């Protein structure tokens, strides 16, 4: 009985209330068109490549969702990916070993999230500013540490984190992503904690009066976002088998674009993990499609830019309609 009513409810939530329907259909359309134009799109090899690419944007989009839901923004994740990627390689090649290197990298990611969160909450520095500082600074640090050159010589076997296959078909990063995505969806959508993040994004004064611990929750959101950059740094290190200060360029923009395409509002209080993942899918599939069609990669940036403008404009128009009923 419960199960039967749950399905139409789920459909309604997906397609009406969260306004995810449009973008989900758009994703299907892009996939279909790409598949018809170039049937190689559906080859196992291409889907695995696409899946791994999706993981990069997907992880960052999930982290960014937590911040944007609270009404904040994190511009630093691309640069943090570069810095953490370099640090991971440094740690692993300077005696910390694989596990030690991973733990140290994630710890630094948490420290960055805490840094952003403390500035935003305790010092009331706009999130835009403090994360812009890390956007510029982390990139510079990455280049300083490596003097501009990649750090190679990672432990053999570490690349399995990227290349490995589960049951010979599912890439390891894809499986890791699915597990994290389900957990994040549960956290944001089904727990008191997630509900309070939405309340903060909806009306921070109201949330304060409700007695919600707004500072702690917002700091947690920035930590999650920075951690997502740490995780992506691990996968990129495994992919390149090196620490490279030039990775991660524009990734924060792709992450934010994915979240906004997925129905989140930059004013806070709206958004969902499913939406952000669909947004990340659209960006990844577009990338993949353009590559398959031998179109210049620069067109991808142009396209994503146009999509961001369209998605934000739609959100603003939607809000304006709400403010002027009738």
């Amino acid at each position: 009985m419960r199960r039967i009513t749950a399905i139409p409810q789920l459909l309604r939530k997906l397609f009406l209330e969260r306004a995810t329907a449009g973008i989900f259909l758009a994703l299907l359309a892009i996939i279909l068109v790409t598949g018809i134009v170039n049937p190689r799109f559906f080859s196992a090899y291409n889907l695995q490549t696409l899946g791994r690419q999706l993981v990069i944007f997907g992880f960052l989009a999930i982290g960014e969702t937590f911040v944007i839901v609270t009404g904040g923004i994190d511009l630093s994740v691309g640069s943090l990916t570069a810095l953490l990627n370099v640090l991971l390689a440094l740690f692993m090649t300077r005696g910390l070993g694989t596990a030690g290197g991973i733990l140290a990298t994630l710890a630094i990611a948490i420290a960055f999230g805490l840094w952003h969160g403390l500035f935003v909450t305790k010092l009331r520095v706009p999130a835009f500013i403090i994360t812009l500082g890390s956007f510029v600074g982390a990139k510079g640090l990455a280049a300083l540490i490596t003097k501009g050159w990649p750090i190679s010589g990672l432990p053999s076997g570490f690349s399995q984190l990227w290349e490995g296959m589960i049951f010979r078909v599912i890439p390891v990063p894809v499986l890791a992503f699915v597990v994290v995505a389900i957990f994040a969806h549960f956290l944001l959508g089904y727990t008191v904690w997630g509900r309070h993040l939405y309340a903060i994004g909806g009306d921070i004064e109201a949330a304060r009066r409700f007695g919600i611990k707004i500072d702690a929750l917002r700091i947690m959101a920035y930590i999650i976002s920075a951690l997502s950059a740490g995780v992506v740094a691990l996968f990129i290190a495994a992919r390149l088998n090196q620490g490279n200060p030039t990775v991660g360029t524009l990734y924060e923009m792709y992450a934010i674009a994915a979240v906004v395409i997925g129905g989140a509002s930059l004013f806070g209080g709206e958004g969902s993990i499913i939406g952000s993942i669909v947004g990340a899918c659209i960006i990844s599939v577009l990338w993949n499609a353009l590559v398959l069609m031998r179109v210049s990669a620069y067109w991808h940036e142009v396209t994503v830019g146009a999509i961001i403008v369209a998605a934000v404009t739609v959100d603003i128009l939607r809000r304006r309609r709400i403010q002027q009923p009738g």
Partner: protein
Amino acid sequence: MDNEFFLLARDIHKRFGAVQALRGVDFEVRYGEVVGLVGDNGAGKSTLMKILAGALPPDRGEIWIEGKRANISSPHDSRRYGIEMVYQDLALAGNLDAPANVFMGREKTHRFWKLTTPVLHRREMEKVTGELLLRLGVQLPNLRQRVRYLSGGQRQAVAIARTLLAQAKLVIMDEPTAALGVSEAERVLDLIRRLKEEGISVVFITHRLPHIFAVCDRIVVLRAGKRVGERTTCETTMEEITQLIVGGKTDVKYERE
């Protein structure tokens, strides 16, 4: 102490810098009574209520609740004594639905499929919210609608349903009808009557005297941080209250400094 009073406040003083906002105000609320608190802008109404709600500390004065000396130093303390404040701007999260707002900070959870983490119990919260709103005589067509799409009166009902959930004994409402049209304001007055029927005391702050006369048992008038008059609603007129507010008249027993 007297058993008919839920709350007694004695000789409350509050100063903001050079401004003496309250100069020794007495205030009391009986069980199940609706008290109208009126006065011109700056008379000290909101300051007095914020002190009772724990949002401001008094400089001097005593508060007694249910016959016992009360120590209110935070909104949390105030709530523990059964006092809930409904703010003028309502303080609701417009992006969430009515049950989420009613239960915000007191969410009901359950453990699903033996998961170790408690999960929001949406169905239970929706059920209870529906019941609370029904007690207030309000039925929302769709409980899952975001609060920002609700009318002013419906939003007020959601804010008051929060106080019912908290089992408040005294609800303080600061200008609940100020931003509402005639029929919506009438609905809010109905909500106040419902609270009274439930045996809950209400302090109702407003500038609109007809609303006071429609629901209040008693009216207390503040002027320039002092209590200048008190009337039982059925024994006074709007003219008389207006005179007390603007300063044409002061009750003898309050005239001494």
